[in-house]
């Protein structure tokens, strides 16, 4: 057993580390996802997109073992994620859910230290690794200056960066984020997306649910488009995003252009599609 997360991040791993096989998820009696197969490409940023209620957050919650699947399994390094001790999983997989709230007055540093919990135990409450990981997270998320500030005194973007810093401190090779930029203005969105790109650059495998398709194309290496609980398309954004897909996902017509600077697809002249199909 190794506590050293850096060993895990090495890109040599050939097998995709997180995958869903024949996954079925449900809310009560309502089946949201049925027999879904997905494999997250290692070291890449995967964006999961789709219309409201298509099951993208449900999928992410399934991948992160927040909810148990009705059938099928999520495989972490080839083994069913639910058969492994939760603490062990937490050393490999970090999650930033959509709802993030912390007790009033809690500081950035207090929050980030929570990220070390899976690495600590009763008789080892603080280690040099913990110290180094917290410091690294503070620097990676550019939060060192704000470490002692209370979370509720920060701007939305700073607060979101603090939460991401917590998952960085967890030092996991895998990171799942559920709408990391919802409720952030454009500047803060870019701030968060660039941080996510940096983490992928450092070798992390990342999956995020993103509401905004343009941002997904811009910042993701791999796009997963979902509709009614099924994956309708997946691949590189430039290959996947077509006017037909957009029409089927969002009932819009538009024209696609290539971003002259990044090469990502750009949507122009977006209109509601006529009802007759």
């Amino acid at each position, binding site marked *: 057993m*190794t506590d*050293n997360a*850096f*060993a895990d991040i090495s890109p040599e791993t050939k097998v995709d580390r997180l995958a869903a096989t024949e996954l079925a998820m449900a809310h009560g009696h309502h089946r949201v996802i049925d027999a879904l197969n997905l494999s997250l490409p290692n070291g890449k940023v995967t964006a999961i997109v789709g219309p409201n209620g298509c099951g993208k957050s449900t999928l992410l*919650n399934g991948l*992160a*073992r*927040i909810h148990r699947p009705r059938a099928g399994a999520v495989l972490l390094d080839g083994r069913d994620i639910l058969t492994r*001790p*939760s*603490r*062990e*999983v*937490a*050393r490999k*997989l*970090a*999650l*930033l*859910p959509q*709802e*993030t*709230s*912390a*007790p*009033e*007055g*809690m*500081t950035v*540093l*207090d*929050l980030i*230290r*929570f*990220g070390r*919990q*899976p690495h600590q135990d*009763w*008789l*080892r*409450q*603080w*280690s*040099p*690794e913990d*110290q*180094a990981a*917290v410091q690294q997270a503070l620097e990676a998320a550019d939060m060192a200056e704000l470490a*002692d500030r*209370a979370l509720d005194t920060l701007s939305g973007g700073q607060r979101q960066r603090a939460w991401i810093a917590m*998952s960085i401190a*967890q030092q996991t090779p895998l990171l799942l984020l559920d709408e990391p930029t919802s409720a952030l203005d454009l500047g803060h969105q870019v701030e968060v997306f660039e941080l996510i790109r940096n983490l992928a650059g450092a070798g992390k495998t990342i999956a995020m649910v993103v509401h905004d398709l343009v941002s997904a194309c811009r910042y993701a290496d791999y796009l997963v488009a979902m509709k009614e609980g099924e994956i309708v398309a997946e691949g590189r954004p430039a290959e996947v995003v077509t006017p037909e897909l957009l029409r089927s996902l969002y009932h819009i017509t538009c024209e696609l252009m290539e971003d002259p600077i990044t090469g990502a697809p750009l949507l122009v002249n977006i209109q509601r599609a006529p009802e007759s199909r």
Partner: protein
Amino acid sequence: MRSPMLFNRSASCTPPPGYWQCLLPGKGEGLGRNLLFNRRATLVNLALMFGLALCGITSLSLGTVNLEIQQVLQALMGNGDPVSRFVIGELRLPRLLAATLTGAGFALAGCLMQTLARNRLATPGIIGIDNAATAFAVASVVGTGISVAPPMMALAGAATATALAFGLSGASGTRGYRFIITGLGIGAIAGAMTQFMLSRVAIDDANAAYPWTVGSLNARDPLATQILAGGCLLAWPLCLMLARGLTTLQLPDAVAIGLGRRPGRIRAGCLVVSVLLTGLAVAVAGPVGMVALIAPEFARALNRAGYVPLLASALIGAIVMVLADLAGRVMLSPLEVPVGIVTALAGSPYLLWILLKRPSGHLQ
């Protein structure tokens, strides 16, 4: 393969700000075992222990017979004149111990339940656990044919109320207002049952059961106090085990799961400890309201944000109970006001203040 950069740092390691680090001798790769102590919490707890000792001595010296501090201390040592030895040893000290234990028990139960439900109104008193414990205990006192000792009956009542509140609040479990509303209903039913039983029995039996209904330390049963002491001893290691996971319950469940915690299990553990303490404390003093609500509130205010102050809550609960009992004894002396009435009088304005205040603080 370990990264050399990290490995070299193992020699020196400074604790996070606001903590003391206690290194323990340990084995394995140069990484010593250690414990972290929250500085603020340590100082607060020491101060509260001192405060509790002061309140205790004050409580021992005041009453229908006022004793000097020196007489109290001598009597505690087993010296001094026979009168003060009797007053202290036979009358006031057992009562002080009962007050301390019940106060600590109620407050600890309150702090656990507030944290697990993420709601500052979620205390055993409001959820109806107190009332149900009382109803069951009264049932055994007034002799409805059930001849089990009151502590066990109170515990059974507490467990029944919790199970009902939990079961009836559906999928949301202990989260959200549904649990509290359900608990309120159960508490009301239990209160009505108590009144009904008291109205049906002979006046002597009703008098015997009366202290149960208001919360009093006057008619306590020494056995019940001993059982409560046992319960507290049992609860403490459980709390220590739960404490680290408990802090993650302040964050959303998905975050806690992501950190490798199992919120459901932590909640279940806390609920069991909370029910145990409430049931056993009710068996000693009856349903003393407000202690479970107020003590954790003060404890949180004294501590840093994000810290779940279990020990501080227990100590403040004990202080509140000792002071309330003292006030009840001397306020209208020689008449005695039951401790439950004092805490209700002093605590209700506080409850109103919580309700009217902007919903803030450490918990929603």
